């Protein structure tokens, strides 16, 4: 007896799943792509009546480009600051030398535990008082709130995966604590450092709520620009912005996959 050929039901199921994925992922992308090149598109036409690169060329100059470069600058500064703060904290936490260790770690996951909007709103009130509202430093600070969560937890996991005997071996041969850290510990933690840098950078680049509350109207990043564009019914501009914003996201996430190890993620939330 031969085994029966794949059942009809299975085939249908697989086809349905494929269709669903197509609709859910490719559909919106396709629509974004269409909108980004639609110079004239009136209902009920199924496709744009006039297609062109007008909005793309507008993207590459003036406000959107400024929003993009400003967003990248803010993300870079946020990443550098987050790492500078997170590396020492994470290292001490990993070696269980952080005063009140688990409690201090919990502090870094707290901002994620509450609804973000109220947190940001109350931060905005404070920022107005400190003259930080509407400034780049203010936006960087608000991005650090979320960015530090990723950085501290990823780095703590990275440092914890490095056996203390690797450091002891260096000290045993005469290396000071500082030299041991820079010659042994940090190079071994590099995948974790890169992974957390990507996470913080992406978080900052795509952050919207806090940026809008603290930065608007003076500091505009791309997500905020996209929001204002779509409010003004400029769906073309919003679509172009969305597609541009996707590029670093996709590229960095592909990179992230190479550096982020399962054990780093498994550690999230473990005190």
């Amino acid at each position: 007896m031969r085994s029966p050929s794949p059942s009809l039901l299975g085939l249908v199921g697989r086809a349905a799943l494929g269709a669903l994925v197509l609709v859910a992922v490719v559909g919106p992308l396709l629509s974004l792509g269409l909108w980004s090149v639609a110079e004239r598109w009136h209902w009920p036409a199924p496709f744009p009546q006039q297609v062109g690169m007008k909005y793309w060329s507008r993207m590459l100059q003036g406000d959107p480009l400024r929003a993009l470069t400003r967003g990248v600058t803010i993300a870079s500064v946020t990443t550098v600051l987050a790492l500078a703060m997170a590396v020492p904290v994470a290292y001490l936490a990993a070696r269980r030398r952080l005063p009140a260790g688990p409690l201090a770690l919990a502090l870094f996951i707290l901002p994620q535990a509450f609804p973000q909007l109220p947190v940001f709103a109350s931060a905005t009130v404070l920022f107005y008082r400190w003259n930080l509202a509407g400034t780049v430093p203010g936006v960087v600070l608000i991005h650090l709130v979320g960015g530090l969560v990723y950085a501290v937890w990823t780095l703590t996991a990275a440092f914890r995966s490095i056996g203390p005997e690797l450091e002891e071996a260096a000290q045993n041969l005469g290396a000071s604590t500082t030299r041991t850290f820079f010659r042994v510990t940090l190079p071994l933690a590099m995948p974790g450092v890169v992974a957390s840098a990507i996470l913080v950078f992406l978080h900052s680049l795509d952050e919207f709520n806090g940026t809008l509350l603290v930065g608007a109207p003076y500091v505009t990043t791309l997500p905020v620009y996209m929001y204002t564009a779509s409010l003004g019914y400029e769906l073309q501009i919003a679509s172009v912005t969305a597609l541009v914003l996707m590029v670093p996201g996709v590229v960095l996430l592909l990179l992230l996959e190479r550096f982020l190890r399962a054990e780093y993620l498994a550690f999230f939330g473990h005190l």
Partner: protein
Amino acid sequence: MEVRVEGLVKRYGRVLALAGVNHVFPSGALTAVVGPSGCGKTTLLRVLAGFVQPEEGRVWMDGRDVTGVPPQARRCALVFQNYALWPHMTVFDNVAFGLRLQRLPASEVERRVREALALVELDRVPGIERRRPKELSGGQQQRVALARALAVRPGLLLLDEPLSNLDAKVRQRVRGEIRTLQRRTGITTVYVTHDQEEALSIADDLVVMDGGRIVQSGRPEEVYAHPEDPFVAEFLGSTNVLNGTVGPDGRILPSSEGRLLFRAEDTALWPAGQSLPPDYAWAPAEVVDCLFLGHVYRAYVRLGDTVVLADTKARVGPGQVVVAVPRDRLLVFSGSEPAARR
């Protein structure tokens, strides 16, 4: 370098890892520290390396008190149980690490790295210095770890279970090589292991630890032949333990008053009914089983309610026999508590 420790005490929580350890590690000798896991041997090693500060007691190296001296300044090199080679560095950079810290000129570093690799016989593997630890076999990693420790010409070499991650064949060979290497370099060495055979075969000076204390120390032959303590007797060699005493006629009588310890290789089996020379302790018994171990046969003999082991040159069939142990090979202890004092 002569190393002396005095009254070392160290607790981990409520566990007493070191309960007053005194010892002199002779200069130029290989001292093996042996004991069951949790006996404090690794803590002792880490105190010598400076990674653990004793709560009480002092450590002296060549007459200098080094108790508070940090590990960096001790001139002792530790070979870790899992080797602790740095995976992001080549073999060369691993071995050169300690030399570069001493700010030696590059040519001198290169010369000393090659010398150290030659010492552990890795110079025969072409191009090995450019490889990373992950690309090496376990035995090769072990040699790199040794070379890294020896390259800095330490005054004291500390080995923490150096063979436990190797398979049995390689272990035998590397054990011999470590012995030869130690003899050739004359570096004072402390070798920690849980394997009594390894310790006996490699040591100039044997230290047996249990429950954070040194139970006995001395030349390996001496400790093996004359255990001062039931624990040592049980731990070294295949040792039979019987609750009993020896009667005036040499017969072993069951009793809770005393404990008799004797090794399998000292235990002879005589045909039942034969009279024994007077310098033997004996008891009638029954052979239960007999296994061929290669170099001897090992008989399992029921004696009262315990089974004792006896090594014989020829296979013995099941049946009644007399177990006989030369009096000078029989260790008699009073009391019947279990040997381990934990």
